[in-house]
């Protein structure tokens, strides 16, 4: 039994790191952080370079880690250009894959996943957008919030309610996922500015007003949307864990550099580095194990949530330790930016609180033999 990644992935890691160091220059990084623009040229280069692969998801995961180690904003906005597209891989029709998935993976389209609403984020089943039946399809109405790629996407995977819930407890019934195109009538996107971090990623509020969605744009079966989204999160959370591991490693690099340049490193700082390095390694192993199960099509949602929650916590702890060790120089430039970028990992795709609830439920299910 080996706990090492096969040689080909270590090679990929080297390529990803070189790519990030070469392309995520300080100048670009600060520019996008300041302007909150969308780095389309980086996205193209990432897709042309083969750093995002649905056939070999380890490559995407490692790219995510290495990119976020250098610049989470730029790295993520590029990789997330295919955000949500696993839904089509799992549940899409042949036509949907041809029309939306394949061009997205070739870097010709950008996708977005629209779940969160002003009224509900963690509580996915509490969303209020509706899909009502019309001739040949549905009418979509509603309001989405904090949608990554919201104002740059060419299409959206939208979760909405297609039939009323049987009861409060069964609110997750009666929801469906549909694909909506950017140019369709009734869709408005408003870019949200002024984010704490990840400012190179595009985030928007979406308003749907009587959008006509043809039947062929329904993903999978009607009424199963909630389960599809949860299954998707059980995959995507491994990538968020990898983001967090990358950010934590980035701070470990910062800490290492700061101590390397010091004439006299006292034991306290030696411990700070040792503890941070230990946590980062533990987070990485947990993330890889969760990912390896997902990539073998036998996901363990408890483990995935553990990886996401723990890695995000480690990223933020190591960030704080590194900032305080570096001192005043950390107030400006790449280090302060990394600090601002770290926090989101505890919020998106399931807050740390939600991850802990998932872990508990999964473990209890196992204990009761389900």
């Amino acid at each position, binding site marked *: 039994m080996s706990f090492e990644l096969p040689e080909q992935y270590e090679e990929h890691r080297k390529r990803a790191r070189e790519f990030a160091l070469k392309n995520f220059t300080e100048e670009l990084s600060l520019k996008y952080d300041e302007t909150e623009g969308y780095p389309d040229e980086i996205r193209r280069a990432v897709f042309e370079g083969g750093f995002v692969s649905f056939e070999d998801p380890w490559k995407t995961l490692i790219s995510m880690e290495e990119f976020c180690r250098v610049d989470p904003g730029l790295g993520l906005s590029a990789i997330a250009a295919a955000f949500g597209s696993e839904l089509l891989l799992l549940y899409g029709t042949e036509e949907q894959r041809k029309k939306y998935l394949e061009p997205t993976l070739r870097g010709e389209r950008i996708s977005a996943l629209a779940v969160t609403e002003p009224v509900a*984020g963690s509580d996915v089943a509490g969303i209020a957008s509706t899909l009502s039946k019309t001739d040949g399809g549905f009418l979509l109405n509603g309001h989405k919030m904090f949608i990554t790629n919201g104002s740059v996407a060419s299409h959206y995977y939208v979760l909405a309610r297609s039939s009323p819930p049987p009861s*409060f407890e069964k609110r997750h019934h009666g929801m469906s996922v549909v694909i909506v195109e950017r140019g369709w009538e009734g869709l408005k996107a408003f870019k949200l500015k002024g984010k704490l971090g990840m400012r190179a990623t595009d985030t928007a509020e979406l308003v749907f007003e009587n959008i006509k969605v043809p039947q062929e744009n329904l993903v999978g079966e009607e009424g199963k949307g909630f389960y599809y989204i949860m299954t998707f999160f059980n995959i995507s959370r491994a990538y968020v864990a990898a983001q967090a591991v990358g950010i934590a490693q980035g701070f470990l690099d910062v800490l290492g550099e700061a101590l390397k340049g010091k004439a006299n490193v006292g034991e306290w700082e030696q411990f700070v580095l040792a503890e941070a390095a230990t946590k980062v390694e533990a987070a990485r192993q947990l993330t890889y194990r969760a990912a390896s199960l997902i990539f073998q099509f036998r996901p363990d949602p408890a483990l995935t949530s553990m990886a996401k929650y723990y890695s995000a916590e480690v990223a933020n702890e190591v960030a704080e330790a590194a900032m305080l060790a570096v001192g005043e120089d950390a107030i400006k430039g790449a280090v302060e930016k990394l600090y601002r970028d770290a926090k989101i990992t*505890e919020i998106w795709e399931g807050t740390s609180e939600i991850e802990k609830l998932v872990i508990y439920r999964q473990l209890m299910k196992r204990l009761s033999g389900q």
Partner: protein
Amino acid sequence: MSEEELVRQVVSEFCEKEIEGSWLKIEREGLDRQLISKLSQTGFLGAIVPPELGGAGMSEKQYMVVLEVLAEHSPSVSFYVFLQNSLVASPLMSSSGNEELLKEIASGEIRGTMIHDGFRMAKKNSISINGGLKGDAKLVPLPDAEVKLVSLNGLYLVRGGTVKRTYRVLGFKGIAFGDIEFNGEKAVMISDEKAESVFLKASGPVAAMAIGMARRSINMAIEYSKQREAFGKKLFEFQPISFYLLSLKEQLEAYESYVYGAADKLRAKALALDLARRAARVSLQVHGGYGYLEDSGVERFYRDSMALSLISGLRLNEMIEASRGILGPGSATV
């Protein structure tokens, strides 16, 4: 009502009127002349400056209350007042002959800043005095301030210097930071005090700012937890959310009296800063995605609490100092 309570009430009223509705504008555009003049009229700008020089002649505790309440409403404004009082007026007051300058500082006619050798200075081109001040300084708050106190082998008073560029840093977005080049500007030594000791004396005021930030972070989270619903419940109905907030609130109360009461303000400062950072992180978390956006007024405390921690002294050095105070001179050497 004690003197401190009275001050608290006055500052709170001032903040409600002058800052609460415009904190975001201050973050984006900085403090305008009008606000600076109001800060002077209320006596906050010259809080510690004696009344005969146009200041308010406040006690340290009263001054700390001013900073604390200002920090609840706008850490940027609080930092500005701190800069003028603790880092500029205070060292000027400990040497004689600066009366006119102190008057101008208290009135807001002149702004001051401090440049800290080895800490604020560019490491490679450290400045030196050679018939005038020569060299570059980096990360200077208010780089266009008319008066600079430069810490070298003592404190020097310098007017001018060329601002090479200005930028925003992690925190206190209402205040520009920048790089300055000195090219032979006259530097007059005003005392043999070093920046380290100025900062050490400012421990109480820094702690007070941290307490203000922590309080606002916690209060915002409590308020939000009573409004926001998830899963058909208010957030504060969930035990983990309630317990995070409970624990922060308990610490706030304990630290607050420690900060105002402790003889050793250095340790109080470290604790208060830790609390401010933790409170901001939890508050942001409780606010979910909303807390992540600038308009929410939550994320600034996350940035500002860390920025204040970085600006106000190196943690390791302070821990060593504090250990020696408690365990004796030989402690924490290895």
